[in-house]
């Protein structure tokens, strides 16, 4: 008996959607415990979402259709990425989409949609948040491409499934110089793209420091729920991408149900560990000044460039 490719894609989307708010809950819980607080339950983000979905939909007076469409764009692009990236199985169900360039730009479409929605109601905070988010995205995006590019050189393909399969076939590649450099670069970019400390603080609503929160300040009710769900799914997808590319162990290469089930468990465990590590790291760092963020991203860009250089010359 085998599991169809479409079923695997649906499974990946379901797992990502279902675990996203839980992952946010886990990071908050870890942070609270490390700070000596009891913290809310891990399921609290799900309860918040349920509450928000039950509310009346309120749209700012001068907002256009962009404002209403943006959350849907965010969630749908992230879902498409979740279906295409080899999280659970290397038998890429959406072969053309599971490509490194497609994935990077699908994620960017979501960012741009939210930035447009931040500009749309014409409030000062929305514009400020959008401009900051675009600055960070413009600096982070080349690094994402370069970092994964370093891994795609040995695999001789830009298809993520092929990269993962190549790493699974030759496990010693996972600890080479280029993959370590690419990992460091990618980790910085994940932090920047997911809007975590030290680039952005997801817990703050202080005018001068917020980036993502400033953009979505005008959202309320079901729209806000979609935005928050999209942001959480984005975190899961980015961490999952990191886990799949740099520690692909456990990902199914066949379509046997037992292997797929095991791979799903491995995926959840890896993302959980990465999320907890991220939260633990966040306790020890302060938010970077906005003008220092380009320095951090330049450093990660250089690391990614080095990774590509090394993989090209040492291959």
């Amino acid at each position, binding site marked *: 008996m085998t599991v169809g490719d479409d079923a695997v894609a649906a499974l990946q989307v379901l797992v990502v959607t279902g675990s996203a708010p839980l992952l946010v809950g886990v990071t908050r819980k870890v942070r609270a415990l490390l700070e000596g607080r009891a913290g809310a339950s891990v399921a609290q983000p799900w309860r918040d979402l349920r509450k928000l979905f039950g509310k009346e939909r309120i749209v700012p007076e001068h907002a256009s259709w962009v404002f209403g469409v943006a959350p849907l764009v965010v969630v749908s692009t992230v879902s498409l990425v979740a279906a295409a990236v080899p999280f659970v199985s290397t038998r890429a169900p959406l072969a053309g989409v599971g490509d490194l360039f497609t994935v990077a730009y699908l994620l960017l479409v979501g960012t741009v949609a939210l930035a447009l929605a931040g500009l749309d109601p014409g409030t000062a905070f929305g514009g400020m948040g959008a401009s900051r988010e675009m600055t960070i995205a413009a600096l982070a995006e080349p690094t994402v491409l370069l970092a994964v590019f370093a891994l795609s050189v040995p695999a001789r393909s830009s298809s993520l499934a092929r990269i993962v399969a190549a790493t699974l076939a030759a496990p010693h590649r996972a600890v080479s*110089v280029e993959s*370590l450099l690419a990992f460091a670069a990618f980790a910085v970019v994940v932090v920047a793209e997911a809007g975590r400390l030290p680039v952005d603080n997801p817990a703050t609503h202080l005018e001068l420091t917020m980036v993502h929160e400033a953009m979505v300040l005008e959202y309320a009710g079901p729209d806000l729920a979609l935005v928050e769900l999209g942001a959480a799914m984005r975190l899961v997808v980015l961490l999952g991408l990191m886990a799949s590319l740099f520690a692909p162990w456990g990902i199914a290469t066949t379509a046997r149900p037992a292997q797929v089930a095991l791979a799903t468990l491995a995926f959840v465990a890896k993302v959980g560990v990465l999320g907890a590590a991220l939260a633990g790291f966040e306790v020890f760092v302060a938010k970077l000044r906005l003008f220092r963020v380009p320095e951090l991203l*330049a450093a990660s860009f250089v690391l990614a460039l*080095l990774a590509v250089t090394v993989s090209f010359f*040492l291959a």
Partner: protein
Amino acid sequence: MSGSLYVQLLDLTAGLVLVCAFVVLWRRDLAAIIRALAVQGAAVAGVAAVSGAHHRDAEPLVVAAVVFGLKAVAVPAVLRRTVGRGGDTREVTPLVNIPASLVAAAALTLVSYAATTPVVAVAPSPETRTIPIGVAVVLIGLFTLATRRKAITQIVGFLLVDNGIALIAFVATAGVPLVVELGASLDLLLAVLILQVLTVRMRTKTGGLDLDALQELRD
């Protein structure tokens, strides 16, 4: 030690040497810069140790121990003492700002890979393939010397150049003779000690470590 494990360990330690050079350029905090330098020294010693263990030769291991004691422990301790005597502990305004110097360092790395391709082609082996990293570290050290204002950061730049040369020596010669390495190490230690004395004198005279303050003669 098996072949592939040896190549991986060699690549990892050599890669660490390069990354530490970038960390030196990236950080502003002098303590963090010195820490990166210490890690780099340990990595250079690691390269010697890995190649000694691979060739089943005791002399590189002794050299590695000497290099570790000097570059990872003694020199950083001297520098830390110099910083610890109070005053400013940050490289606040380098002549080239930090993102630009990181990109310049990346360009220097590419240049060194391109320039040493013929050298590596003479005798391609896992060791010689790390020669470009040594050249890159030398170039980054020179860049640090040219663009940083603080005396400590300039000493660190000088030490980066030395680490790069040491790395090339270890990978290109299949083991530096102990006498040669002892001589070079003592030279380096003396140079750092003299530079430390000069730095401390400079601080007592001018109240800072900024070399730009030394541009005119005064009574």
